[in-house]
């Protein structure tokens, strides 16, 4: 039970720290240190440009995509070294958020299923941030039930023709490439007729439309495919085996542990330490203290749970489905904290003008963004199912469409 690095880990940490000290974009540090819920915006520059600059610098010095093999632009580092790097990178890790889906999910999927030439062609540019990738999974009628998707891919000689629509595609509007899951055999049950491809987002017939979200920002997109033609060489995995390919993608999502969980607790603690209520400081109020304490132990519980995962990583184990608790706990906590922070401000809590409101409006923006946190990458309900089924061993939900040909499944209720 200790927080100490092994000698090798300590050496790696020292090397990483020295390099970050000497090379990180220090001028961005104050802005990156501000709490950010949802998409990061920089006042002093464009987040995309700054992110690409930092990623390129890291790639040139051998610090990009640490756990990837060297031949694809990585460093061949151990999972624990990757965690150490994340700890040392500190606030600059936020500059990685635009690459997260590509490097964290598309890259590993390409590594597992693309041809060797394609891996050499695409992966190093993904690692260096030159190219950004997105993941085209969700559809209007296929969210949590993602295998219910309807985007079609039809074989035509050596090519495939894709038609349909995706939605909630994060970053599609600035992505160069994407991995897309399609239906290739509607006569088979829903999980069995899917096929995965990768494609150039600038292919003719691809139209990206940003979705204006409830909080006014636009991180996600609708993506339309009209007779988009791609060669069979861009298929990932076997025909009709796309569901298994997608599981590789989703499993890799879980490997991004710990360092990125935002709970809102430090911000709330700071806020309550300064906010004057009618009877004195908010933090001296019994009700406020009780809520703060409950949130604080959830946040620390998540932090030390991630330390336990790191310990498992350092023993060579993979983090399991128990890591689903991070988003499950922090998502609704963010929402509760935001609501309570507004409540403490009374009528003024309604104000969203950063100059006119206590806490510079951060809790107002947290309030409006947090519903998405509870849905994106798996809803609270899906995460609870994962814990119940894969950790506790409870039976899976009954799926009445499981063995029915996809084209025989009813599409509307009565």
């Amino acid at each position, binding site marked *: *039970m*200790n*927080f*100490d*690095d092994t000698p090798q*880990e300590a050496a790696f940490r020292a090397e990483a720290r020295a390099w970050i000290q000497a090379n990180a974009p220090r001028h961005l540090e104050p802005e990156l240190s501000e709490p950010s819920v949802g998409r990061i915006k920089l006042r002093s520059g464009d987040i995309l440009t700054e992110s690409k600059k930092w990623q390129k610098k890291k790639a040139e010095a051998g610090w990009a995509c640490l756990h990837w093999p060297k031949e694809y632009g990585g460093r061949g580092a151990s999972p624990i070294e990757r965690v150490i790097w994340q700890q040392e990178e500190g606030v600059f890790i936020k500059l990685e958020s635009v690459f997260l889906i590509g490097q964290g999910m598309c890259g590993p999927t390409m590594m597992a299923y693309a041809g060797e030439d394609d891996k050499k062609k695409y992966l190093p540019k993904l690692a260096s941030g030159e190219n950004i990738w997105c993941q085209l999974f969700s559809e209007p009628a296929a969210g949590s039930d993602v295998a219910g998707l309807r985007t079609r891919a039809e074989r035509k000689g050596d090519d495939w023709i894709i038609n349909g629509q995706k939605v909630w595609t994060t970053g599609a509007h600035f992505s160069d490439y994407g991995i897309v899951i399609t239906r290739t055999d509607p006569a088979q049950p829903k999980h069995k007729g899917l096929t995965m491809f990768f494609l150039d987002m600038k292919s003719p017939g691809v139209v990206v439309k940003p979705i204006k979200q409830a909080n006014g920002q636009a991180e996600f997109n609708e993506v339309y495919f009209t007779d988009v033609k791609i060669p069979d060489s861009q298929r990932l995995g076997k025909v009709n085996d796309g569901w298994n390919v997608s599981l590789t993608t989703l499993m890799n999502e879980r490997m991004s542990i710990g360092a990125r969980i935002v709970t809102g607790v430090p911000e709330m*603690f*700071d806020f309550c*330490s300064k906010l004057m209520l009618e009877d004195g400081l908010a*933090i001296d109020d*019994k009700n406020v*203290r*009780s809520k*703060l*304490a*409950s949130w*604080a*132990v*959830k946040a*620390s*519980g*998540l*932090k*030390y*749970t991630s*330390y*336990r995962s*790191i*310990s*498992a990583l*350092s023993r060579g184990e993979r983090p399991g489905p*128990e890591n689903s*608790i991070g988003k*499950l*706990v922090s998502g609704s906590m963010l929402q509760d904290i935001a609501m309570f922070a507004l409540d403490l401000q009374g009528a003024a809590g309604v104000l969203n003008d950063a100059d006119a409101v206590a806490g510079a409006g951060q809790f107002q923006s947290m309030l409006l963004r947090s519903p998405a946190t509870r849905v994106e990458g798996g809803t609270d*309900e899906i*995460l*609870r*199912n994962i*814990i*119940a*089924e894969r*950790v*506790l*061993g*409870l*039976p*899976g*939900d*009954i799926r009445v469409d499981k063995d029915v040909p996809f084209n025989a499944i009813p599409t509307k209720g009565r």
Partner: protein
Amino acid sequence: MNFEFSDDQKQLRDQARRYLAEHSPSKAVRSVLEGKAPYDKALWKGLAEMGFLGVAIPEEFGGAGAGHLELCVIAEEIGRVLAPVPFASTIYLATEAIMLAGSDEQKAKWLPKIASGEAIGTLALFEGAGNPSPKGINVSVSQGAVSGTKKPVPDGAIADFAIVVARTGSTGRETDIGLFIVDLNGAGVTRKSLANIDQAHGQAEITFDKAKAEPLGAANEGWSILTRVLDRAAVLMAFEQVGGADRALEMGRDYALDRIAFGRQIGSFQAVKHLLADMYVSATLARSNCYYGAWALSTDAAELPEAAAGARISATQAFQHCAKNNNQVHGGMGFTWEFDCHLYYRRANALALALGSLSYWENQLIDRMRLRNAG
């Protein structure tokens, strides 16, 4: 980083789990709960023989000289089976107080007896309703004799000695509070058992009438020693709570797999699955906070006060959450005397109050976090 118990400690856990499964079945818990015995004497003796009572006591005082991480491991297992023995009062409270503040003579007198199971100890702190506060201490000491009434005193009816928190002056400040060792079998001590929600652990009222009191630690440092004892006990008891929470979760899970309704295992209904998933989440968060507390306790880190409060709150919430929802998963059966659900429900709610209530620890945590943020 290694945020996990060592292989040796895990082996100790397996050993303790096996031993307690055999020697502390729920039948034994019920026997004490139903008033057939004040505590399980055979189990207490067995725990001593296994070396579990003295696991953190130095070898020179008759213990195993292992350490607090090992004690955390044992505490979790004690909590899993709801062992009906005065473990918390003797080991977390009395022993920790003596190890922290006792003179060599006091250590030599009491610690070997504790390790061998000959002496049961407790902490006499509370005086009726209310949380720990120097202002709440009216029991007083003058000329080496203690007078006044303490309640509830955990295991007070069966304990051989108590660490009594008493007033030594009249200013009402912390420095007016001292700790004293009192022989409960001596003159001037009257005890009365009090009924409580978890009768598997007794509670008593003890009245002192000029009973002989031996100072423990410096006269004006009683309150600061007490705070340190409570912090250490909070970590240890949190492990006990996590052990109980885990067991309650397992019971709920097993029943959900076993029980059929509407033609299906009830564990296949989302409402039940999600109830159990949330129990898992609270138990996991508590366990992780406990590991941090164990690290702080075993290294005597400056972070201990904050870590202890965090572990205490988290584990209290988790055990209460898991115990009450275990009852819920069991439906009507969960409310029968026959099923063990109520044993966990009782213990969860009793332990939640044992070292001061949740709100007391919430206050402690916020004060300590503020101190850190200011520092």
